[in-house]
């Protein structure tokens, strides 16, 4: 594998993809026409308005691929190599309605599957991403990084009802929602809940099994049968969870302060790690596993010759996609001439399971916006 400094500066995307191949990634070319389902399912309905959708004569929804991560992952899963460590690179068009330019644009990128050395794999992605900007003459892009796993570890360690934990994790990637959640967390019980408040409060302290039976019975007495895919038991469970939430409204002010303090931590990875260790110590929150992974990644980055002091890490940094599970990064033009990142990627260990893999498969990768880089090249 090559390091950033020995790569010749060239502007053709073919030279870039050739360098990915030399780094050990097999070039693949997934189908342009893809089933729409996985994209809508994994990226959310919001992506629908940006996709080019069509329907085949059998009524199946198809799309022009809006990215290559999901197509490369699906092809890998369908291949005999599924589950084995493999690395792929690609170069080709992707299709999205967008404000800048046309709906078709070029992306190159890498997807790396099932590597057990996750810290080294994460570091390699960022290093190869930096190689890609260097190809286009941008030697020192802004490096922004985050780590979803740290936020998940924080939420797991907090004394909160399960419903709140699930919601906070889901909303990490939607920052306005997260702010709303934090507001709601601190709203007093009186104004937050429904006409069942009294019942919920009475149920809050009671024996869960008995309460569950009561709610189930009440529903059947009322002649209400479950429609729409949720069983009565499921409804009763969540109803009781709300009772628990109602009982918990006195707690959260310091929890909110803790989350906000966590989300304010920024710095280069060394500074951030020190701050996070101090935060965990003061708040008596067990972040050790996630922090150890974070520090070994930093060590791997340094070992690959990445100038760690130039990395701007932020605990609040997310990429707006639910499927990232760990390290995330974006490389930006320091002069902000592009309408978005030049290179972006991260770890998505949950994605292959959601695409149907029976066992968990680690995965990390990134994509390169070729046109944005080329435009910068010709501008300078």
């Amino acid at each position, binding site marked *: 594998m090559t390091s950033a400094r020995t790569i010749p500066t060239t502007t053709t995307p073919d030279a870039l993809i050739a360098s990915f191949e030399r780094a050990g990634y097999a070039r693949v070319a997934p189908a342009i026409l893809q089933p729409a389902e996985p994209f809508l*399912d994994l990226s959310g309905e*919001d992506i629908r308005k940006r996709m080019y959708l069509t329907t085949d004569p059998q009524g199946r929804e198809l799309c022009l691929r809006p990215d290559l991560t999901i197509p490369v992952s699906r092809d890998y899963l369908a291949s005999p190599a599924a589950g084995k460590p493999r690395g792929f690179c690609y170069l080709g068009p992707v299709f999205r309605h967008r404000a800048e330019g046309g709906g078709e644009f070029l992306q190159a990128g890498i997807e790396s599957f099932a590597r057990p050395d996750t810290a080294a794999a994460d570091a390699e992605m960022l290093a190869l991403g930096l190689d890609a900007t260097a190809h286009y003459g941008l030697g020192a892009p802004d490096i922004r990084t985050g780590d979803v796993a740290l936020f998940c570890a924080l939420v797991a360690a907090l004394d909160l009802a399960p419903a709140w934990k699930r919601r906070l994790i889901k909303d990490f990637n939607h920052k306005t929602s997260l702010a*709303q959640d934090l507001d709601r967390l601190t709203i007093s019980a009186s104004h937050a809940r429904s006409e069942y408040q009294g019942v919920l409060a009475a149920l809050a302290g009671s024996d869960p099994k008995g309460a569950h039976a009561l709610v189930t019975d009440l529903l059947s007495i009322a002649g209400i049968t479950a429609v729409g895919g949720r069983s009565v038991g499921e409804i009763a469970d969540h109803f009781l969870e709300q009772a628990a939430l109602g009982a918990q409204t006195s707690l959260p002010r310091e929890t909110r302060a803790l989350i906000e303090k966590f989300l304010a931590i920024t710095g280069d990875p060394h500074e951030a790690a020190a701050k996070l260790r101090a935060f965990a110590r003061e708040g008596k929150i067990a972040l050790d596993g996630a922090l150890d992974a974070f520090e070994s990644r930093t060590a791997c980055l340094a070992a690959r010759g990445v100038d760690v002091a130039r990395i701007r890490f932020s605990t609040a940094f997310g990429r707006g996609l639910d499927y990232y599970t760990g390290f995330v990064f974006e490389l930006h033009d320091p002069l902000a001439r592009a309408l978005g990142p030049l290179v972006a990627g991260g770890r998505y260990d949950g994605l292959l399971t959601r695409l149907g893999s029976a066992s968990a498969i680690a995965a990390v990768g990134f994509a390169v916006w070729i046109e944005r880089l080329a435009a910068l090249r010709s501008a300078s």
Partner: protein
Amino acid sequence: MSATLVVAVPAKGRLQANMEAFFARVGLELIKPRGVRDYRGTIANLPGVEVAYLSAAEVVELLAQGAVHLGVTGEDLVREKIPDADRRVVFVDALGFGHANVAVAVPQAWIDVHSMADLDDVAIAFRLKHERKMRVATKYVNLTRDFFSSHGVTDYRIVESSGATEAAPAAGTAELIVDITTTGATLAANGLKVIDDGVILRSQANLIAARAANWGAAARATARSVLDRIAAQTHARAFREVRTRFARCDNALIAEAKQRFGVETPFGGPTSSGMLTLHCPPTHVHALATLLRDNGAENVVVADLGYVFSRADPLYAKLEAGLGPPS
């Protein structure tokens, strides 16, 4: 396009009946010179207008393209079918019929769901438990997506539905729906309830102008005379005329009436002989008459208004502000 003003209106159902009644009330009689089966019509005594009878979906489509100047249809369809609707059309006037709320409805058995925040919780838990996302049946794909997104709900899938959406949960093709409801009776009959903060849009029939249409001077002039009648009649319906004459009538008293009852003075303050004409909202007529008599009026005469034409021409002003100056 010639100088003719093309107005697209719904061709069937209650919306057509209400629309025709509305135009008749403002003194614009829609006529079909070649018989009731004809899909082209005119307006009696108003040359330069072509009325196109179309399906509701076509009205929206032609407005978006600018193939017609004006259209009558529900705001719900316009907001659903035309992305960034306010940039493409001008909502000139809400017409007071065709009321329907586009709302999120869930099974009544979901006693744990009262708000969109509850729905968000349930959506997350549903995905984790069933390893698939909750399905929302609707024909309002875009309204649903924007509304759910604004409430931070992401764990759902849309199932497009073209009819009998309210039956989808019972049929097992969706967990919940987004649909129009007027009284909620159809929803209740299907075991569904509307979420408290789940009303996406309170829709009614609107008179809508297409920005992309060819708005020449002749089309504008014709539109102006249509809108002038609508504005004059709308204003007339919102007020009663109150007339009286008494010597002690002064500006202080009128100021009080304006402040308390929302009274308007179409011809200014009292004349030198104390003649006064006021326009008063119907609900305050008696209170106003009492106030006037308490202050010395002998008789107070109240009458319905036919039209109130004003120089200000508010609807046309709104249209012109939306369209920009003539090209």
